[in-house]
């Protein structure tokens, strides 16, 4: 793990990169990193995020500046700008059931080729996918999902990069921290090693590549 400034961290992300961003309706999203992505005008991003948040909040900021060219998400209904950009074909949107979304990312982080899920069988979601029967029950083969970068927000980080999360701001963050080539983290508090007890570490330090320094 290396401690870097938010400017240095975002400078590593090229235009057109695939980026996973933690958070659920902007809760548990690394806002400082997104502000800097906007400031450095990183365009053509292939965003993987549960939702499109709302304008001005969380990943919603990326849609305010039309920085996204492809979106993989579960729900974008609360961001009219993302909806407009989808309906105008400015963004290619892949809508995925939320349980499938998180399992695909988990599979990507855990070295699996994908997962078999009953969700989506017999619906539009099944189109173009392999259906596999196990013990007489139909499942869809949903492939693993990874990204070049994961932008993660934690409640506590220690100087080694161990992370702990707060309440509902945990959501997709620990799963995405497993599934990207480069993991960049912001934290509410950076604390000395040992403050987060081993049993309370959710994301172990070796998964974190860059921790954004506070201040």
């Amino acid at each position: 793990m290396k401690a870097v400034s938010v400017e240095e961290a975002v400078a590593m992300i090229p235009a057109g990169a695939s980026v996973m961003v933690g958070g659920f309706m902007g809760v548990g999203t690394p806002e400082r990193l997104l502000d800097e992505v906007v400031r450095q005008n990183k365009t053509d991003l292939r965003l993987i995020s549960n939702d499109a948040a709302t304008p001005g909040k969380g990943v919603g900021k990326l849609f305010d500046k039309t920085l996204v060219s492809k979106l993989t998400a579960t729900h974008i209904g609360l961001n009219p700008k993302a909806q407009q950009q989808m309906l105008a074909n400015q963004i290619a949107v892949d809508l995925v059931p939320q349980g499938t979304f998180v399992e695909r990312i988990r599979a990507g982080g855990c070295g699996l080729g994908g997962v078999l899920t009953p969700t989506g069988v017999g619906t539009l979601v099944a189109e173009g996918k392999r259906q596999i029967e196990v013990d007489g029950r139909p499942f869809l083969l949903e492939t693993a999902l990874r990204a070049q970068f994961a932008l993660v927000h934690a409640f506590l980080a220690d100087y080694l990069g161990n992370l702990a999360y707060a309440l509902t701001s945990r959501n997709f963050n620990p799963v995405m921290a497993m599934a990207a080539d480069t993991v960049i983290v912001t934290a509410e508090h950076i604390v000395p090693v040992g403050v987060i007890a081993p049993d309370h570490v959710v994301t172990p330090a070796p998964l974190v590549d860059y921790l954004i320094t506070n201040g």
Partner: protein
Amino acid sequence: MDPQIVIARRVAQELKSGNLVNLGIGIPTLVANYVPSELKVFFQSENGLIGTGPIPEQGMAHPTLTDAGGRPISALPGASTFDSAISFGLIRGGHVDVTVLGGLQVDAHGHLANWMIPGKMVPGMGGAMDLVSGAKRVIVAMQHAAKGKSKIVAKCSLPLTSARPVNLVVTDLAVIGFPEGKATLLETAPGVSVGEVLALTEAELAIPDNVPEMRL
């Protein structure tokens, strides 16, 4: 009584002590207000919480304690938080006893459509497909008709949420179940006749000899 309150109060009667329950956005959210306090029901919010409590008093909201719509909520003593993989493991894995969702259409066999209107509204399915596929019992809470048009249809014209039929539909006019895969009128709302229900129901509805009125 307000039609939404009729629905919420009737659905609340379906919950039992010890149940793990997921409530969707809209009318389903109201159900929590009508659960008797002696009933110990665990409410799950799929963004990672079991033990959701009421909306916090002014000034007591915390930015890391929210519902699936991103709005502030509270957590009751004994609440637990977890990541989204566990949250949907609970849902898809059959650990959620009851899910209550809104609906756009339910058909004569209990199939639900509630996530998109092609060309008009494509918000995404969020957690709805997993909830309908995985919860032990699926209850739809919705108005019986929209702009005079029945939402209980012969066959869904909108894309389905799941191939699995729902267990119960509670509307402002009726309770409908699906014994042997066939829409059946189980109860009528207070002051509503069987004829009035039929007039606003497009699907063929089986009518048992005795159709009691909801007891709210």
